[in-house]
């Protein structure tokens, strides 16, 4: 192998590693956002929860959404896995087991965590 080609492949491998670490950092950040949201949910404090919730679309205002979730006794049982959305590199799909009033659903919920200017936010 010529020296130049070897350099290109080393460079390529470095970029690939960087891409993988970038993906990992996104999924970790998304999972952490989901955990922080559910930890803070019982407080119903939108000063804390608001920055963790996505806005727009069919999302309702923080106070309303959080009150409903709290009334229904939603809690995080565990995160199954998370992957980048194949159509949006700034969104992570987090599969999470959610309990309602202590009863764990059969299927995991697919939560969308989006990267916005202020950080990562969950869209239900």
């Amino acid at each position, binding site marked *: 192998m010529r020296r*130049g*080609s070897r350099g*290109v*492949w080393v*460079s*390529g491998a470095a*970029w*690939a590693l960087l*891409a*993988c670490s*970038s*993906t990992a950092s996104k999924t970790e950040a998304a999972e952490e956002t989901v955990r922080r949201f559910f930890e803070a949910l019982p407080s119903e404090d939108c000063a804390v929860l608001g920055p963790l919730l996505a806005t727009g*679309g*069919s999302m309702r205002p923080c106070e309303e959404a959080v009150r*409903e*979730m709290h*009334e*229904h006794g939603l809690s995080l049982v565990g995160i199954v896995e998370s*992957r*980048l*959305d*194949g*159509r*949006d*590199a700034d969104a992570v*799909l987090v599969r999470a087991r959610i309990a309602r009033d202590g009863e764990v659903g059969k*299927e*995991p*919920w*697919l*939560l*969308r965590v989006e990267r916005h200017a202020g950080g990562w936010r969950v*869209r*239900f």
Partner: protein
Amino acid sequence: MRKVLCAVATLMLWACGGSGGETSQPRQEGLSLSAETGDTRGTFARDGSEVSFSAREVEPGVYSLEVRLRGMTLAGLLDPASGVSTMDGFADEGAADTQLTDADRELLSAFYDALSAELPTGDAAAPEAMYLRRAVGLWAQHPSTVELQRTVMGEQGRGYTMLCSYARCNGRNTGSCGGVYNWYSYAKHDCNKGGFSFAGNQQIAQLGDHTSCGGDEFYMSGSTWLCGEPDHWSRPKVMGNCFGRCGGGCGGDTQYTLDATNHDGCVRNGHVLASAWCDDQFVSATDDELFASNCY
């Protein structure tokens, strides 16, 4: 060397899951459809977004569906005689995971309306086209929190319950009830307000295609019918806009079922269409929409 760098860059872009987006010019607005025996395909364009679709009979009585939009593919394989189907959805690039968003549902809903308007109603449509319409109606209401990849089994009496007779009033399947209603059907859901037995989670419904308005439904307030939706009132009487029918509003099929009634009773009762509170009603109604017979 430049080629190698280019290959590495391409690999990087693919690995990062970047959305390539559609670069082709959108076609003419509206639905363009071609059909021959066992094969219906075409495109639908609206506001610069395009849907391409195909529905084929791949074996006798087995239908393969494919709908592509906004960088994703929705696929289905249906064997109605056996009551078995597999549904899937994935990003076009790398077949990676994705989920339906509000923008996807909006486009699919317009596509569903166009299919319902263009194709013959109910069983008069070619079978592959009818199942395509049903699947599109399903995807147009698919909540983001529910996985796209699913196996759906349907069997009448166990998986779904037909309510055709409840959809009639005054001896008619369609048209005005003339003040003669069938108040047989209790639409029920569970949510943050309470369980199925909570009166606020119930609506007493006249099913069927008997009247429509610009809101979600008509509901009785005192002695007056109002257009809109009550928000967890105690067992209001409701009707209109094809209450209890599979698919959003009045689609091209005429399936009235118990699970579709309960789903309508959820999304037309203070919850938005893709609300997580109505996910379980949506999942229960999936087999109804794919497999239940048309009532008329």
